[in-house]
């Protein structure tokens, strides 16, 4: 990128001034002017998740300007944002909906990569870091859910942390670690806030950087044929920029419109202030934990805890377990069958969780 041949000719004006001092054109060329398989179908799930993460960073930063992470003040500060801060309702509602959509698109992205077998050679590490991003996104949702400190948030956290307490051998320690004590208290709120605005963004940024670097280095997978070992893949290609970027941009705008509609028609709600002495009827975790929650109710506790943990572990090392080189679903009947059953079970359990 620093070779003379890649240097842009000297330009006049501000553009030239910056180019001479940054040599950014070469960097942009290296990042953008790549070609992707014409048969690649990303369905824009990963890009959408990335866009939503950007929305979360922007709206989360604005919310943090007003939010006070103590049980005495948290609820009122959120109420203040919703009632008195100019467009505070819009910022918080977009943050709320973008969080839900981000989890949805991360899951859809994971499913797309699985069914297109894009986790196979040479993208095993991309998959592993992607699973890491999935985990961090889920913890993002879990920690953020408590912050309004209303009844729904408080009791969903009580239930959620109790599930962690069921983990064999280390459950009690995990429970205390998560809550900062035996019960959900101001210690819990403090550490959830710290995790949500400091630790998790940093972790997600690092994992995302590695994930995107690997995507850039290895290119997009062709869902029709596996990558050949030891040589460059063949087939028709299309420019990443501007063709794919324009498609992605259109999707992002549509997502932005969706967020505006959701935030305007269904603004983020606020229940009564958290009360540790009054358990509301029908306390449940958020929708993305409902499947695990319902599974726990149906099977012995040890099974209900170990199955999701082992399942996540197996998912992480999937590229190293699945030795089948084929990428087409019809030639991966066992993997596709197992995944379809697991997915159907998760959807059914989540739907069951929504029943009164």
């Amino acid at each position, binding site marked *: 990128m620093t070779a003379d041949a890649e240097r842009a000719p000297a330009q006049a004006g501000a553009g030239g001034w910056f180019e001479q001092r940054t040599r950014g054109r070469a960097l942009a060329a290296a990042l953008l002017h790549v070609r992707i398989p014409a048969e690649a179908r990303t369905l824009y799930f990963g890009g959408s998740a990335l866009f939503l993460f950007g929305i979360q960073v922007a709206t989360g930063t604005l919310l943090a300007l007003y939010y006070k992470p103590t049980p005495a003040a948290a609820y009122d500060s959120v109420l203040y944002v919703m009632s008195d801060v100019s467009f505070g309702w819009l910022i918080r509602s977009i943050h709320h909906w973008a969080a839900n959509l981000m989890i949805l698109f991360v899951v859809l992205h994971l499913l797309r990569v699985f069914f297109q077998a894009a986790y196979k050679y040479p993208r095993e590490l991309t998959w592993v870091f992607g699973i890491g991003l999935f985990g961090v996104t889920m913890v993002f949702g879990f920690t953020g859910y408590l912050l309004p400190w209303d009844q729904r948030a408080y009791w969903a956290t009580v239930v959620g942390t109790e599930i962690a307490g069921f983990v064999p051998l280390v459950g009690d320690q995990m429970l205390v670690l998560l809550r900062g004590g035996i019960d959900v208290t101001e210690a819990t709120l403090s550490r959830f806030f710290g995790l949500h605005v400091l630790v998790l963004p940093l972790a997600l940024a690092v994992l995302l950087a590695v994930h995107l670097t690997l995507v850039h*280095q290895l290119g997009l997978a062709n869902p029709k044929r596996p990558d050949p070992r030891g040589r*460059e893949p*063949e087939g028709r290609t299309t420019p990443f920029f501007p063709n794919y970027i324009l498609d992605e941009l259109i999707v992002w705008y549509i997502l932005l419109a969706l967020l505006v*509609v959701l935030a*305007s028609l269904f603004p983020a709600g606020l229940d009564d202030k958290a009360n540790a002495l009054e358990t509301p009827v029908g306390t449940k975790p958020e929708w993305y934990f409902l499947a695990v929650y319902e599974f726990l109710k149906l099977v012995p506790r040890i099974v209900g805890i170990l199955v999701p943990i082992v399942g996540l572990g197996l998912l992480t090392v999937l590229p190293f377990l699945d030795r089948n080189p084929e990428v087409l679903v019809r030639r991966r009947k066992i993997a596709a069958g197992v995944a379809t059953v697991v997915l159907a079970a998760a959807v059914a359990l989540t739907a069951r969780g929504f029943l009164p």
Partner: protein
Amino acid sequence: MAPGRGEVRRVRLLGAAAIPAGVLLLVLVSGARAEDPTLAQVTFASPSPSPSLIPGPPPPTPLPHPPAGGTNQCFECHRALNHRQETIATAWQESIHGTGGVTCADCHGGDPNSDRMGIAMDRTKGFIGKPSREQTVGICGSCHADAQRMRKYNLPTDQYSQYWTSVHGQRLAAVADTQVAICIDCHGSHDIKKASDPTAAVYPPNVPKLCASCHADAAKMDPYGIPTDQYEIYSKSVHGVALLENADPRAPSCASCHGSHDAKPPSATEVVEVCGKCHTATQALFMESRHAELSTAAPKCWTCHGTHDVAQPSQKLFFHEVQPDYQCITCHDLADRSLRIELDRFKAEADRRCDTCHHPDSDIYAQVEAIAGSLSGAQGTFDSAEARIHEAAGVGMIVEDADVALSEAKTNLIQSQAAVHTTKLTLISQSAAEAKTKAESAEAIARARLDESLFRRAAMVVVVALIVLIVVALVLVRRRVERRPGDDGQGPEKTGAS
């Protein structure tokens, strides 16, 4: 509970008969049996004997209680005897008596230290065996009326004396009616549990069913001529629903109004005090009213609210839907025109209305109209505000401040409704006006939220329209790019980083 028409008549009848001929009555009933229906109708007529049919509680059954800490050989032998005896022994062992050191011999007599039947169950030395129903109350009383014995358990000792004041105890003592409830019918015999044990029959939420086990049984109640539908009626009342369906421990069970050990219907003069045990503030307001000044001739709680069928009070309590057929005897004694209450007129729920007594031509009727109008106006404004707030919350608006204003309006509204018990128009109107003002304020906040919601939706349409325009422009650019030579997908046969 307030007495029904028949009960009041019976009280009067008994009062007239029992006071001058009390001693004679005692003699008459002393040998009677409940199984005799004729006698039941005559001598058992009053469910609430006043004055008492007995001079006082009989002495507890003398029973030589074995010293604490001794062996309980009865348990060892009986549990090995057969399945039935084993069940009884186990029930005792797990009961509050079994865990509290009360042994078999404490109730059955005998020598618990001996494993020889002839000694352990020697009737000449105090062995009772299975006590009769007449004996049982006295046996329980031999400990439960003994302050010295009960001290270590921190239990009251007045249940025994209370029982003999109850309808159950009076009948047992006066006419040896063994069909009445005795201690073991409610508490169990060998399997006695603490009243605070949720599985105990005497645990407050279980009490209505316990009482109904006899009082809803037509065969058992037939000799006494008392109704058997109280449980059915109570279970649908505001009290019954709160206790049986909502499991609200504050809600009254049968015992809350009738008493437990001293169970009997409250007399007409007791009703206000009985209801006032819980409805303290309402009782105080009632005592300020003209109704309270009129004493027995005036309406009591049950006149408007009923007894077992107490419902949520509402505006309908003021007037009949169709003007009633007024009769002088409803409120006046025809002999001297003095005020009285014709209790029959309030038996039907539809007749528990102010205009049952107050005639449309009277000044008081006009005052009732003013009270009803004042409350109705406040209630209408409150309902309207509540609907607006609900509407605003339904479109996702934060309405906490409106809720606070509505809560304040609710407080004033409840105060004005409660103030009806004073019958004072000024006081009621003042509270109702405050409720109306606060409800209007809450509604104004809710309307502002609804307006804001409309603005948000209009702004949303504009923003989405702008985004659609941008998307259309991007789609056009994208098509143009696709048509550009060299960018039609026919690039080099290579993927990945360029």
